[in-house]
């Protein structure tokens, strides 16, 4: 260890103390320790463990769980390309290789001088302005070769991020269609004045009247959740805003947090008043690190004008405050009980449910967890009334929905529609002229083919958290499916068997077919794996992980069929390739050290025969050397 123990200990202890030496702050502490030291060495983790009174394995468990925490050395500049299919459509893979060549660095390996690492990460939520990346956690957008040339020289000059061109970090909101949520002016404090004037009970009635359902995608009736939490026994209650928008292709919560943060905070404060909570948390995904300072400023401004803190709006006893916790690269933390685990400073494995968070949430106390968009909407309803909101949308899905539109279209960005809008209408509005398919609600959602373009976006037909990725005719749908399958392998938490193993098995099969080595039997195996994962997984991640593969098998069978090498059976291994190690050891690579092609054909035939009862054909007899 080159850092003097005294210095390291001092740095770490200062950070721990700034967080009140609270174990619930562990993830925040580890993030900051890493910001100072570039990675979490065993020594650094030891100091953290001692300072918090935790066992070292607990600290290590957290450090190893989150993608953005490193337990091996990284470069001083850590550059991660967003690896969503929409980034790939915009050429991200070529740019990744380009930058690696420029910097003389391999993917995921720190350069010998320790200055830089270049790697990939799951979707960073900049799909409408990609190709995107993160540098030391901060979002980079609209990357192209000139920008990467400049970035390479900035890295080589050791220029601090503050000296990089600010436009590289510019995140635009691209609001293309606004309705009642994004379009109408909202006076700060309007919802809180309404709840003070009319009382929490009347506000709940408005929320019931509004018919609002959770906008994260699951669609649970909002008023029921709040009432259940209000009525749950427990002296301390919490309000949690789920801003861990990890579904690839979605970015509407990022826009809300960037442009409409007051509305979100006001919705949370309203919830606090209604359920009787004094503390709220925003769980902000690590990819949106750039929003932390502006949001902190907004919270402070709200405290100063009496909309947050003690005696809100001068009302004695109306106390509520909000803390922001940053995630660190774990899609599973979007699941509400995993999110709560993470808020408590732990690794994000979903809890056993029941009990549900409304009765046993943060620190086992009653907790409301809602999505960013949901909180924003509640503030509007409080100010304008439930009937006003319910006048939009369909019978079962009231109000409007924000869609994050990206992929092959002329105008990617945010579209707010009343619930019930057809897929076709969205495609027309965003300028997607030749869409061969849509991935709705992210890789865990629905794969839609043109014959379904008249379906409606609402809870009773196509439910969605908001992701809407367009694939034009010239794309290979299987590129998307393969990207999604790899995403779930990376994001499975590993707790339960069907998801931990199933995501890898499914991914291997998708790879096998995608690279032209698959057979009909592989497609059948995918379906069976999908059934097992859906029925057997512990949480929604594993239960929905096979959706895109299963949907696309139904909706785009020809995309899979044309990749098959044979129609019935292909071995999972390459007989000749498996002799590679023997060839290396013996230093031979002549034709005599390779199997003739017929051997592979024999293996294939043997598999085929195992599945069918028909007698051998003459060709098959010849191949197997069987006498007629």
């Amino acid at each position, binding site marked *: 260890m080159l850092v003097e123990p005294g210095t390291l200990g001092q740095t770490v202890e200062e950070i721990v103390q700034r967080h009140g030496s609270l174990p619930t702050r562990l993830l925040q502490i580890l993030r900051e320790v890493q910001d100072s030291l570039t990675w979490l060495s065993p020594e650094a983790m030891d100091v953290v463990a001692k300072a918090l009174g935790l066992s070292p*394995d607990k600290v290590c468990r957290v450090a190893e769980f989150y993608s953005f925490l490193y337990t091996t050395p990284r470069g001083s500049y850590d550059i991660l390309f967003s690896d969503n299919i929409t980034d790939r459509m915009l050429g991200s893979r070529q740019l990744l290789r380009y930058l690696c060549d420029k910097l003389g660095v391999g993917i995921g390996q720190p350069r010998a001088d320790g200055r830089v690492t270049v790697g990939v990460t799951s979707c960073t939520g900049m799909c409408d302005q990609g190709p995107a990346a993160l540098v030391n956690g901060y979002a980079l957008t609209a990357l192209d070769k000139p920008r990467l040339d400049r970035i390479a020289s900035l890295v080589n000059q050791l220029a601090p991020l503050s000296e990089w061109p600010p436009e590289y970090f510019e995140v635009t909101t691209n609001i293309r269609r606004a309705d009642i949520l994004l379009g109408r002016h909202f006076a700060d404090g309007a919802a809180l004045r309404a709840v003070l004037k009319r009382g929490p009970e009347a506000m709940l009635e408005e929320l019931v009247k509004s018919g609002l359902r959770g906008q994260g995608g699951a669609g649970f009736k909002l008023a029921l959740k709040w009432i259940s939490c209000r009525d749950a026994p427990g002296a301390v209650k919490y309000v949690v805003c789920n801003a861990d928008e990890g579904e690839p292709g979605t970015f509407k919560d990022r826009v809300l947090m960037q442009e409409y943060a007051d509305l979100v905070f006001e919705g949370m404060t309203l919830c606090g008043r209604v359920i009787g909570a004094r503390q709220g948390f925003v769980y902000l995904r690590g990819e949106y690190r750039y929003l932390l300072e502006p949001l902190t400023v907004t919270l402070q401004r709200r405290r100063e004008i009496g909309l947050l803190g003690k005696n809100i709006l001068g009302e004695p006893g109306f106390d509520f405050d909000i803390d922001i916790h940053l995630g660190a690269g*774990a899609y599973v933390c979007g699941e509400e009980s995993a999110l709560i685990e993470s808020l408590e400073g732990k690794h994000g494995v979903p809890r056993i449910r029941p009990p549900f968070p409304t009765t046993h949430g943060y620190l086992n106390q009653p907790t409301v967890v809602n999505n960013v968009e949901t909180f924003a909407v509640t503030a509007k309803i409080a100010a304008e009334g439930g009937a006003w909101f319910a006048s939009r949308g369909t019978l079962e899905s009231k109000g409007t929905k924000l869609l994050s539109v990206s992929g092959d279209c002329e105008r990617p960005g945010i579209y707010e529609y009343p619930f019930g809008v057809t897929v076709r209408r969205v495609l027309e509005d965003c300028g997607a002229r030749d869409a061969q398919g849509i991935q709705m609600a992210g890789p865990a959602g629905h794969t839609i083919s043109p014959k379904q373009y008249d379906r409606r976006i609402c809870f009773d037909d196509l439910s969605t958290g908001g992701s809407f990725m367009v694939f034009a005719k010239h794309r290979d749908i299987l590129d998307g499916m393969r990207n999604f399958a790899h995403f779930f392998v*990376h*994001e499975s*938490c*590993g*707790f*339960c*068997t069907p998801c931990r193993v199933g995501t890898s098995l499914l991914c291997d099969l998708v790879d096998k077919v995608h690279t032209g080595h698959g057979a009909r039997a592989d497609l059948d195996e995918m379906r069976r794996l999908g059934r097992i994962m859906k*029925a057997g997984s512990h949480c929604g991640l594993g239960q929905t992980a096979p959706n895109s593969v299963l949907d696309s098998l139904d909706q785009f069978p020809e995309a899979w069929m044309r990749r098959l090498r044979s129609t019935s059976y292909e071995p999972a291994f390459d007989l000749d390739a498996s002799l590679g190690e023997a060839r290396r050891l013996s230093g031979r690579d002549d034709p005599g050290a390779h199997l003739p092609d017929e051997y592979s054909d024999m293996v294939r035939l043997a598999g085929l025969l195992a599945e069918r009862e028909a007698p051998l054909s003459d060709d098959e007899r010849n191949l197997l050397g069987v006498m007629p």
Partner: protein
Amino acid sequence: MNGGPLFTIDDHPVLFQDGQTIMEAARAAGVYIPHLCFNPEFAPHGSCRVCLVKVNGRTQASCTTPAMAGQVVQSETEELRDIRRGILEMMFVEGNHVCPACEKSGACQLQAVAYYVGMLASPFTYFYPRRALDASHPDVVIDFNRCILCELCVRASRDIDGKNVFAVQNRGIQAHLVINTPSGKLGATTFSITDKAAQVCPTGAMMIKNQGYGSPIGSRLYDQESVKIVGDVAQVPESEGGRRHE
């Protein structure tokens, strides 16, 4: 029947007490539901997913689902058998479970449950992990390639032995069992074969040294009767081929 609330498993009525899970009530009523990470001496974990049942039409883990009056539970259906078999197949390809060469063969709950659900071979591609054995402890060998991440040893060592010897690290398919010492070696811990953690492993991941092949194949724990009759390896005394200390 009278004397309390009831639900049904495969049409058989099962009495239960408030607070019991479906698994606990079924056990008390003598109804076997296959399982691996569940052990009645520990809080339910719900990670192996072998004990899946259908509760009013929804697939759920019976070890974590509270029993409720009137529930209609299905367990021994062909659909559930296929899902359970699939989960066992996943476990077998994830690790290196070489039954014919394994000292635990015949007295292994993983193998016994696999037979119970009708699994003879896995159609899935084997991962063939290469995790080094840990033979540093004088009395015990750990073969990490046979671990199914049920966390029973983790829970036993932490909650009962008070030693916190084992842990799971990393995530996804990288998740794996580790020993909580800087060297990662069991020999560097205070672990002892009298620990509870030495009595709970349902697989051949943890093997006691110097006592191999005590009884011939064919007369081992699960060779004569199915796991449904014999029960968990952790509940059977060592003298009868199980892991429980007398």
